[in-house]
């Protein structure tokens, strides 16, 4: 059967409905992953995707849910192409649902190109290695877990922790020092609450960037299956803005845990063999297809920097969602409940946080010559603080050696002066490093193994 002859053919009646999945038999041979239009008895069209195809039958996942569908009256059409999103300069400042349909009351934006939302793997030889320092104005990030342009750096948070505030602060303050460039923010919400979405929108308004933001909203009460395409649609928009329009795009994906839950839901209904905690075995591959759509391309000006937010169920970093994410992303910013309870903002955990691309984005000419060693020394000293605190909890502070007491005090000052800052405080990298030196200088010189003699002479005690 030729493609042309089957186009527009509509099948009346389906064979099975199971959660968000429907099964149709007696159809022509449809392609894997292709788009289907499912028409409910009232005539409303819902979109779906072919998950499995065999001779004359297909399993379709219906994005808008199967509520109100019936076996005899539902009609199905196949588009013969995967889900696409029409991209163009006009998408800036607009609000879409997870499938890319405008929900701000405006007309669909003019599309310069129609792109497959599934994307394609980037050829590693075409990538430009990210090494341009983004100053977020937050000491814990700039100083110790530096973000660079084109990086994917998630925030591992927990319920009730101020991850939204931190991300909002980053979007307000992030800049490349000494460079004026066109930038955009792509914001993809997956199953988050209405007021959280409102908080971000208000924030974009306040900082006057709303016309540079593209929003994709799938809120908590929207169909959960739609979440599976929301990040893909958003990243398609980001790829157009960065690689075609040469903009520097910051993509915020929140909350990836909800995305994974939807994936698990579908997998369970399809009776797939689960791996850990009921998540499908391909969760890693699936997540990597999302996270790897970040970076820079040789010869193209624009970039995609990803900042996914995910809440760790029960604050457990070894839960499959943060665990598998950490294996794909280039580091992670981990928020710590204990710091938050002590009213330290931002409560960025000193030790488990990491930026893998930091090494190439810092140093002379990028941040400052002493940056790498200061950061390394802060990590080492703070790790000692943790040991000393554990010891003090057992034997009491009085019994500590004099040096350990100095470390204890260093820990306090580090958390109070370096880690803590106000929500609207924008620190330059020089300020951050100077504060770093101030707290490091509390320790005797002999303890600073990770700093060179020259750096000690230049900065110690200053």
């Amino acid at each position: 059967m030729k493609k042309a002859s089957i186009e527009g053919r509509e099948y009346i009646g389906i064979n099975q409905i199971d959660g968000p999945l429907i099964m149709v038999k007696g159809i022509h041979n449809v392609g894997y992953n292709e788009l289907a239009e499912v028409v409910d008895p009232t005539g409303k069209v819902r979109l779906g995707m072919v998950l499995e195809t065999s001779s004359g039958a297909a399993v379709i996942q219906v994005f808008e849910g199967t509520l109100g569908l019936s076996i005899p009256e539902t009609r199905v059409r196949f588009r013969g192409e995967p889900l696409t999103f029409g991209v163009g300069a006009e998408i800036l400042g607009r609000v879409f649902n997870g499938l890319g349909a405008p929900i701000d009351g405006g007309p669909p934006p003019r599309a310069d190109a129609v792109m497959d939302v599934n994307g394609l793997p980037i050829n590693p030889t075409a990538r430009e290695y990210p090494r341009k320092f983004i100053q977020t104005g937050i000491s814990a990030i700039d100083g110790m877990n530096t973000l660079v342009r084109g990086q994917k750096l998630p925030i591992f948070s927990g319920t009730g922790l101020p991850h939204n505030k931190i991300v909002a602060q980053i979007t307000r303050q992030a800049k490349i020092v000494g460079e004026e460039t066109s930038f955009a923010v792509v914001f993809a919400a997956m199953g988050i609450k209405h007021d959280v979405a409102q908080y971000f929108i208000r924030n974009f308004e306040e900082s006057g960037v709303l016309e540079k933001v593209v929003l994709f909203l799938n809120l908590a009460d929207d169909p959960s299956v739609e979440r599976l395409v929301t990040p893909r649609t958003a990243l398609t928009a980001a790829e157009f803005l960065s690689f075609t329009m040469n903009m520097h795009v910051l993509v915020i994906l929140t909350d990836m845990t909800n995305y994974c839950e939807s994936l698990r839901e579908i997998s369970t209904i399809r009776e797939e063999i689960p791996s850990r905690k009921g998540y499908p075995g391909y969760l890693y591959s699936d997540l990597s297809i999302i996270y790897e759509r970040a970076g820079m391309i040789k010869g193209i000006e624009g970039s995609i920097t990803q900042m996914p937010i995910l809440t760790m169920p029960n604050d457990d970093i070894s839960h499959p969602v943060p665990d598998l994410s950490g294996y794909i992303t280039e580091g992670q910013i981990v928020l710590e409940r204990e710091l938050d309870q002590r009213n330290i903002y931002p409560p960025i955990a000193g030790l488990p946080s990491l930026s893998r691309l930091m090494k190439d984005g810092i140093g002379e000419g990028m941040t400052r010559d002493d940056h790498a060693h200061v950061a390394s020394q802060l990590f080492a000293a703070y790790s000692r603080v943790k040991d000393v605190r554990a010891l003090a909890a057992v034997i009491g502070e009085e019994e500590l050696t004099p040096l350990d007491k100095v470390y204890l005090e260093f820990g306090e000052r580090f958390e109070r002066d370096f880690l803590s800052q106000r929500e609207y405080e924008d620190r330059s990298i020089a300020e951050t490093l100077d504060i770093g030196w101030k707290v490091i200088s509390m320790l005797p010189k002999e303890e600073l193994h990770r700093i060179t003699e020259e750096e000690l002479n230049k900065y110690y005690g200053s």
Partner: protein
Amino acid sequence: MLEIIGTVEKVVGPVVHARGIMKAKMLDLVEVGENHLIGEIVKLEGDWAAIQVYEDTTGLAPGSDIYSAGMPLSVELGPGLLGTIYDGVQRPLEAIRDTSDQYIRKGIHVTALDREKRWEFKPVMKAGTVLEGGEVIGTVQETRLIECRILAPPGAKGKVDRVADAGPYGVDDVVMRYDDPSGAAVEVKLHHRWPVRQQRPVKGRLPLKIPLITGQRVIDTLFPVAKGGTVVLPGGFGTGKTMTQHALSKWSDADIIVYIGCGERGNEMTDVLISFPELIDPRTGRPIMERTILIANTSNMPVAAREASIYTGITIAEYYRDQGYHVAIMADSTSRWAEALRELSGRMEEMPADEGFPAYLPTRLAEFYERAGMVETLCGSEGSISIVGSVSPPGGDFSEPVTQHTKRFVRCFWALDRQLANARHYPAISWLDSYSEYVDEVSDWWEENSGGEWAEFRQRIMDLLQQEGKLMQVVKLVGPDVLPDTQRIILETCTMFKNAFLQQNSFDQIDMYCTPEKQLKMLRVILDFYILGLENIKKGANIHQIKRMSVTSEIMRMKFTIANDELEKIDEIRDRLHRSMQQVEDMFE
């Protein structure tokens, strides 16, 4: 035109079910659908077959044709492999980029070896010789570092009729012709193909005895690996698996490095591509890219090709081993490969064993690691393959199936420790959990090359580390002050050893590579500190007098301050240490 051998019946992600397959063999390569997606037959039942497809199957519909490629999944072996980056099924990524944009699109067919390039061939074999498979026909200078020996394909037998004259040849050109025992003429080209899932034959296995020198102190001194050995490197995310693998590929003294980026990050491969051509090998003075082959099947590339990437890598490694080279394979990460197995197995609805992994996981792991070893090649020379496989255990928990099964088939275990990584102690290889079964095998080499002290020094420092581990349990409960100074000197020595020796900065120009001689001298200084310090304490000195000596900070910094070619400066530090210790001693005489 390829022959049609069946049709698609069902598409489930990367697995395609096919009908009407009569002529295919198990593990045959096929092309699926109008885009000619590459796939491999992994199951046959009557006229039904399961095919794993190495490209994205979006848009593939039942009823599409399946074409036979007439051979199993194989790689092209010949000059031009070095310095190239391939995907999991040996498609050259740079050449793909020349035909396309920044993306890897579907249905691209590019040959693995450049057909245009000419190589200066020098014949070695003479006409009239009785030919055996694996013998050297001639040579080609592949890079300035490596001479590629053109081998007769394993299994070839007969009488050499003609060998090509010296001169420029392409990989498709015939360089030798022989008459096989039946009298038929067989032509041998500059390159040949070999199925990836089949081990290349060797004459015999040799005992392991030479260490693979990596320039990384914690490895060479504490947990050495022999050339031809196997290592597993497990660690949670952020503990430095990839960093360690990169350091090993940069500095280890193998002739050839095959780096398999299996289901890992795209940017990491880009990092290798950018940094390796600039890095100079300390032994040869040439860019290390000239001895490196990269297999990059990043996490977002098709999962079936990830499964194949490990085999592609090891087959290429065997090719260079057969030429008499020492090859080291970095497989990062074998967990992603195991997960690819799990995903494909799940899609084929096989019965799962542990955590959804197929029951044949241990068999596959064993098959892979057994392809390592020191061998006598068919051409009579010595060659080896060492494998360093990293494992990414979920949640950093080493009790998971991939770590556990791998441990059964390797003899060296470098456990990456989360606590050390958090304190930015790199390489974060735990000295308490790791082990190496190659210590005895490589002792002789160290004895010949370093004056016979290595094994003794190593044992002493390992003992101290063990004692420190026990003492730290006490310290955690009551603080260090209650310990007698004879025990506190152990804590001090171990702290010194960890900071001044085990920790190694791979970005520092001096520290990134440490010769075995420097390692041994450094270790001797640190052990002297312990021995002399303990003597002094027994004579009445206290720990603070010893800690206060200014020479200790010199010891702490010697890894950064003393280059590999000025080792006499370590002797000077040692002299100063002895003098300072003498001064302390004098106070108690």
